[in-house]
């Protein structure tokens, strides 16, 4: 494995008396899809929110692209190249595709030495088209509000936005939720394409088929702890389910030591 893009060491996140993430290590290398698997409340979303700057961890270190980081705000993480695609996609459904891809980072014409700035919709449309093309995504029209698009298409817009802004790590939260079967396939295909282009992906999911369809490695969490980490090729659905429900735990000994300390 090459130098990891993301490296999380001993991360702990507490909410009052509740410890949502306990002492978790996680490595993600370039060109790798890592599935983060776990039941509801296992701590996978909290872990990811610490990485993407939504939460601040109480303990532990996060290294991104070789540098130690502590993002105070989500926008800091995004600027650094960590793009998180949440279930609600964070798209403005009343705006068209280019407006969404360039939201907050619009391309502008400048007049009178920058005194008057207008939107350069032409450039944004062209760039959006290009970005979608690199992912083999085709829409009949890009200039309609995206509320007329299907769930999978909107997912594609969110991914294209991340790709356009040169995301160095893509975190996707349940990307195939609420999608029809053909759309799920299309989204999984996009994830493979991202990996092939060298962008590592962390896939948060509790959908087992997705894990085996795209992930190279799988990390299972249970009650805030990492209970196993396996190559997808070396494991099976049955085994992963046992980890998910807490019947198996590779790190129990280590955890009890940490708990005693």
């Amino acid at each position, binding site marked *: 494995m090459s130098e990891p893009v993301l490296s999380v060491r001993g991360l702990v996140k507490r909410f009052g008396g509740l410890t949502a993430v306990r002492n978790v290590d996680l490595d993600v290398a370039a060109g790798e899809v890592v599935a983060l698997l776990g039941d509801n409340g296992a701590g996978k979303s909290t872990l990811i929110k610490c990485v993407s700057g939504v939460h601040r961890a109480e303990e532990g270190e996060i290294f991104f692209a070789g540098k130690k980081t502590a993002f105070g705000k989500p*926008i800091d993480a995004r600027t650094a190249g960590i793009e998180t695609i949440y279930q609600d996609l*964070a798209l403005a*459904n009343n*705006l068209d595709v280019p407006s969404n891809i360039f*939201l907050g980072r619009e391309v502008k014409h400048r007049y009178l030495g920058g005194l008057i700035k207008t*939107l350069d919709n032409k450039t944004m449309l062209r760039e959006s088209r290009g970005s979608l093309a690199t992912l083999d995504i085709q829409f009949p029209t890009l200039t309609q509000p995206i509320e007329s698009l299907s769930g999978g298409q909107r997912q594609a817009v969110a991914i294209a936005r991340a790709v356009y802004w040169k995301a160095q790590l893509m975190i996707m939260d349940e990307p195939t939720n609420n999608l029809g079967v053909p759309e799920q396939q299309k989204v999984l295909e996009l994830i493979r394409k991202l990996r092939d282009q060298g962008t590592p992906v962390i896939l948060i999911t509790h959908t087992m088929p997705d894990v085996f369809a795209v992930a190279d490695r799988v990390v299972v969490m249970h009650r805030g702890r990492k209970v196993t980490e396996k190559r997808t090729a070396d494991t099976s659905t049955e085994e992963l389910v046992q980890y998910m429900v807490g019947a198996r735990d590779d790190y129990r000994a280590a955890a009890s030591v940490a708990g005693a300390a």
Partner: protein
Amino acid sequence: MATTDTLTATATAALSPSRRLLLTVSRLWAWLFLLLMILFFVIMVPWLSQGVSFLTVRNSQNILVAIVPVLLLGLGQTFVIISAGIDLSVGWVMSLASVLSALAIRNSFNAGTPLWLAVILGFLAAVAGAGAVGAINGTIIAKLKVPAFIVTLGSSFIVRGLALLWSENTTVVGLPDGIRDYGNDSLFYWIHGEGGGFYFLEPPADLPTQLRRQLDLILPWPVVIALVVVAIAMFLLNRTQFGRHTYAIGGNMQAALRAGIPVDRHIIKLYALSAITAGIGGFLSTLRYTGGSAVIGDPLLLSSIAAVIIGGVSLFGGAGTIIGTVIGALIIAVLTTGLVMLNVPAFWQFIVVGAVVIVAVLIDQSRDLIIGRYKGGAE
């Protein structure tokens, strides 16, 4: 089939032709309604009131002058409502601006300032006073997370009190006479028929009284200023990042935040903008009536919101246009004027405007239904 939604078909592109026609009509209904209404009055007014016709130059200019205050309040409100907010303070802010500009003009003129400079000072007082109220509204809404409805309701009472206090009981009088020219002159003048003509900026001084009586004002100054504000508003909303972010905040606040848009600062600007357009309205009314009035704006608030809604701005945020608001204001003004000319008791205008507002929202909702039904049918 569980779903026929695929990555290559969009919902609207696949609508049947009749549905698409229905959709177009529902989008353009405000234009159609305005045209039909004008047509109705053009036919009915001469029929019911002998010798009077609806579509005269004078009447059209009167309608335009009448909509200026409602339109100015509505323009700022359009931005605010697109961002999923509401500004209930603009009526009284307009009153406050009228009082402030009247005080500034009177006091500076009495202190020896030339009239033109006093007028400029009056404009600045109106805009600064109104803008300050708007910025405070926006700050409380954005930073302290108090609902816009509450903040602007509260501030409208405060502003009302200030306007009445500073005007020392409703009106500021004693403004220089020359002010009237600023408020009531127009860009062009026209005299229809023999001996008449078309004049720029001012009519000939030596007009016989008989012709002077036929003088029509084309584009009175308040209308010109309102048109400039309309043009600026269209530019801001359609062409700039400011407009794009306004739509984004109204469409999905979370998305706007995650995209790194400075949402708080934007909201403060929106309420300042809304108050400033109201302030311009107050300034114009001071010129027009040669006096500041602390009660001029209040009755216009709800009309302006009605204009915005008739114009198709969604109260849920994220959708709306400037031209829609202009049409909405026109519909209200044409309706009011037309009914008066039909000798219908003036109070009927309220009943009709109210009905139009509700119908407007129903049509907007039916649009979703037209598309929505298709989506449902695909399953």
